[in-house]
C-alpha cells in the first residue's frame, strides 16, 4: 500500500538505482514493544561496535547496577559498555559474539532487582564538545544495525559544513518493525533528539525519511515534523519502497541527490544520517542520563511461536528472548540476528544480543533452504540490482583469479554487501560471499 504525499512532504530528489523488491513480511508492525522478563544472566562482549574493543573495568565478584560502566577504552572509535542488570560479576574472559568471533566479555548474574546505578543523572551540556562527549558516555552506537559509534559521527570538524541531518526511518529490511514502532511509540524522544542534534551541531536542515509503504508511521512522523517551527526546517520525505533504500549512501542520494564518493562518508557531502531509534535515544538520554542498556528488536520467522517486538536488556542470550516469545513452534533450521537480507546466521542460541542487533528471526527447514549454485548464465540481474553500479559476476571472476588491480578498478570496496545481487541471482550464486572473498583478496594484497 502506498500513500498519497500530502502538501509540504518532500519526495525523493533522486531514485535509488537498481535494488530489489523483497517480500516485506512486516508481520509485527501492529505489535507494541514489550519488555521481556529480566534475564537471570547477561553476557556483555567488549566488542559491540565497529572500532576498538573495550577493556573490562570490573572484576569477578564486583556488584554492579543497571547503567554502570563495565567496559571502556581510551581509543576514539569505540563506545563504553554498561551493565543492563543489577547483580554480581561472575566471569570476565572470552565470550562468543553472535558472529562466532571470540572477544573479551563480562558475565553478570542478575539479582532480579534491576536497581539503577546511583551515578545516573542527566548530562550537563554547554558546548558542542560536551554534547559529543555525552553521546559517547551514553554508549550509543548506530541502532540501525551497523553499530558504528555515534559520537564519532557527530564529532565531524566544522569545515565539513554539514547542512542536512537525515533521520532514517526507512527500515527496508524485511520482517523488522522496531523503527516503525519507534515512530509510533516514542515521538517525544524523537522530537527531543532532533532538536538537540540540530542545536548543538548547528545543522540548518532536517529531513525525516520514510518508505511510502508505512502509512501509520508516516502519520506519526507527520505529527512529529509538525511540532517544529518553520524556521527549524524540519521536513518529512517519502521514499519509494525498494531495498536497500535505508542504506546510508542511498539515503543521502534520495534525500539530497548527492552521491557519496567511494571511500568517503556522508559528512564529505554535507550530510549526517541517523537512524530514528538512535535519534530518539539521544533525546531520552539527554533528559534522563540513562545509558544504552536495552534496545528493541523484532522476534519473528516461521519457527517462532509468538512473534513479538521486544525490549531486551543488552547481553541477553537469544534463547532467553525466544523463550519469552513462546519458544519454537517448529524445529528451527536457521536463526538470524538481523534481517534476512543483511543479517547473520548464528551458530547457537547461547550467544548474547548486542547493541546493533535489531531482530532475531528463526526459520524452519523449508524457509531456510538455499538455492543450489549453478553456472552463471550472464542474465545480468545482479548488475541491474546493484545499487552501487557494480558488476558482481565480474568481481567473482576477478576474485577467483586474484586480479587485485581489476578488482580495485571496478570498485569492489564500494560494495556494502546489501545482498541485492545474490537475492536476484537465478543461478543461486552466493554472490555476497564472493564479494567478501574479493575484499579479502584486495586486503591481503594490500598487506604485502
Amino acid at each position: 500500500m502506498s500513500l498519497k504525499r500530502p502538501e509540504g512532504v518532500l519526495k525523493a530528489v533522486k531514485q535509488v538505482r537498481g535494488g530489489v523488491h523483497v517480500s516485506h513480511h512486516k508481520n509485527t508492525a501492529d505489535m507494541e514493544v514489550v519488555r521481556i522478563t529480566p534475564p537471570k544472566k547477561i553476557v556483555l562482549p567488549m566488542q559491540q561496535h565497529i572500532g576498538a574493543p573495550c577493556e573490562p573495568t570490573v572484576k569477578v565478584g564486583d556488584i554492579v547496577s543497571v547503567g554502570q560502566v563495565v567496559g571502556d577504552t581510551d581509543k576514539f572509535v569505540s563506545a563504553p559498555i554498561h551493565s543492563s542488570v543489577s547483580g554480581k560479576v561472575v566471569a570476565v574472559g572470552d565470550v562468543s559474539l553472535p558472529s562466532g568471533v571470540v572477544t573479551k566479555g563480562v558475565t553478570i548474574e542478575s539479582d532480579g532487582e534491576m536497581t539503577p546505578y546511583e551515578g545516573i543523572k542527566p548530562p550537563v551540556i554547554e558546548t558542542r564538545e560536551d554534547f559529543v562527549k555525552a553521546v559517547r558516555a551514553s554508549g550509543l552506537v548506530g541502532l540501525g544495525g551497523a553499530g558504528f559509534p555515534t559520537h564519532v559521527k557527530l564529532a565531524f570538524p566544522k569545515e565539513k559544513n554539514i547542512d542536512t541531518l537525515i533521520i532514517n526511518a526507512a527500515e527496508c529490511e524485511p520482517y523488522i518493525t522496531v523503527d516503525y514502532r519507534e515512530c509510533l511509540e516514542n515521538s517525544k524522544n524523537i522530537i527531543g533528539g532532533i532538536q538537540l542534534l540540530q542545536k548543538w551541531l548547528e545543522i540548518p536542515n532536517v529531513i525525516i525519511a520514510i518508505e511510502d509503504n508505512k502509512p501509520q508511521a508516516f502519520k506519526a512522523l507527520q505529527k512529529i515534523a509538525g511540532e517544529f517551527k518553520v524556521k527549524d526546517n524540519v521536513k518529512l520525505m517519502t521514499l519509494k519502497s525498494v531495498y536497500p533504500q535505508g542504506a546510508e549512501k542511498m539515503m543521502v542520494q534520495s534525500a539530497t541527490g548527492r552521491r557519496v564518493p567511494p571511500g568517503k562518508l556522508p559528512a564529505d557531502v554535507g550530510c549526517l544520517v541517523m537512524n530514528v531509534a538512535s535519534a530518539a535515544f539521544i533525546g531520552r538520554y539527554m533528559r534522563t542520563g540513562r545509558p544504552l542498556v536495552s534496545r528493541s528488536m523484532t522476534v519473528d520467522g516461521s519457527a517462532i511461536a509468538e512473534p513479538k517486538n521486544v525490549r531486551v536488556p543488552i547481553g541477553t542470550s537469544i534463547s532467553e528472548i525466544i523463550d519469552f516469545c513462546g519458544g519454537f513452534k517448529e524445529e528451527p533450521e536457521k536463526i538470524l540476528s538481523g534481517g534476512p537480507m543483511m543479517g547473520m546466521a548464528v551458530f547457537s542460541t547461547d550467544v548474547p544480543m548486542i547493541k546493533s542487533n535489531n531482530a532475531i528471526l528463526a526459520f524452519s527447514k523449508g524457509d531456510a533452504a538455499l538455492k543450489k549454485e549453478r553456472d552463471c548464465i550472464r542474465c545480468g540481474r545482479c548488475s541491474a540490482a546493484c545499487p552501487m553500479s557494480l558488476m558482481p559476476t565480474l568481481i567473482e571472476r576477478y576474485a577467483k583469479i586474484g586480479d587485485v588491480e581489476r578488482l580495485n578498478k571496478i570498485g569492489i570496496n564500494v560494495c556494502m554487501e546489501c545482498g541485492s545481487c545474490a537475492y536476484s541471482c537465478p543461478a543461486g550464486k552466493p554472490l555476497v560471499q564472493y564479494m567478501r572473498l574479493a575484499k579479502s583478496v584486495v586486503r591481503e594484497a594490500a598487506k604485502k
Partner: protein
Amino acid sequence: MILDKKLSVSASPHDHSKDTVTRIMLDVVIALVPSLIAAFFLFGPRTLIVSAVSVGTCVLAEYLSRIVMKRHQTIADLSAVVTGLLIAFNVPTSMPLWMVVLGDIFAIVVVKQMFGGIGMNFVNPALATRIMLIASFPTEMAKWNAPFSWKTEATTTASPLGEIKNIFRSGTINDDSFAELPSLMDMFLGKRAGSLGEVCAIALIIGLIYLLARRVIKITIPLSYVGSFAVIMFIAGGFNLTFLAYQVLSGGLLLGAIFMATDYTTSPINFKGQVIFGICCGILTALIRLFGNLPEGVSFAIILMNILVPHIEHLTTPKPFGTVKEKKKKGAEG
C-alpha cells in the same frame, strides 16, 4: 532453553527471489510455442517432427557430453531445449533430418560444451549452427516450402528476401515494385516462404510480449536492433514505408532480434552495452541485406556482434556509485 540442534549457517542474504535458470529457459520455450503452432499450420506436421528431432538431439548431446566431460548434469536447466527449438526454427521445413541432427550436435558439443557449457559459449549456438548449415548445405538451406502447400502437394517457392533485394538493386522503388510479393498482411501473418519458425511475425511478437511481461528480457536489444535496421532501410528505400515494412517482416529479423540477439550469454549485460550491441546488429544486418551476396544477414550480424561483446562490455562497464568524473579542466568548470 538452549538449543542443542546444529543450526545451518550461511552468508547473507537469507532470502532469494523465485527466479531460477530452469524457469527462465521454460519461459523462453513458452514464448516460442506460438511460433511453433503457427509453423504447424503454415508448413504442416513435418515442422513438429523437425522440432522434436532437434530438441531430442540437443538434449541427448548435452547429456552425453556432460558425462564424457565428467561434469555435473545440466539438461534440467532446459537450455538445450531452447537451442534445439531455435535450430529447428532456423531451417526450412523440408530440411533432411540427418542434417538437422548434425547441426544440433555441432551446436551443443562444439559451440556450447567445448567452451564450458551454459553461460560460457561466445557465440549463439543456434546461429552458429545456421551458418554452418548454410555453408555446408546451401541447396537444402534455401529450399522453401510454400505456405499451406503441405495440404495438397509440397511445392517450393522463392523467399521474399531475394525479390526484395532485386527491387532495391533495380534502383526504382515505388508501390508497384512489390506486386510479386505476398501482401504485407500475409507477411505479418506468416503466409510466406521462409525458415520454419521465422515467418509468422505476429506469433513472434506474442512471444516477445510474454518475455517482457515475465521480465525475462528487456526491450532494449530488440528495439535498438529493429530500430536502427528500420532507419537504414527507410533511407535506403528512398523513404518508402512499404519497402521498410517488407524488410522488417521478411527473413529472420524478428526471430533474431527477439530470441537470438537477446541470448544472455552472448549479449552485453548493461543497458549502454545492449544499446550499442542492438544498433550495431541492426546496421550490419541492413548492410548485408542491401549490399551482400547472401539474401539474409541476421545470423552473420548477430554472430559478429557476439564476438565483440567482451569489448563492448569492457567499454561500457559502469563506474562504481559516487565515482567522481575526472573532467579535463579547461578554464571555467560547468
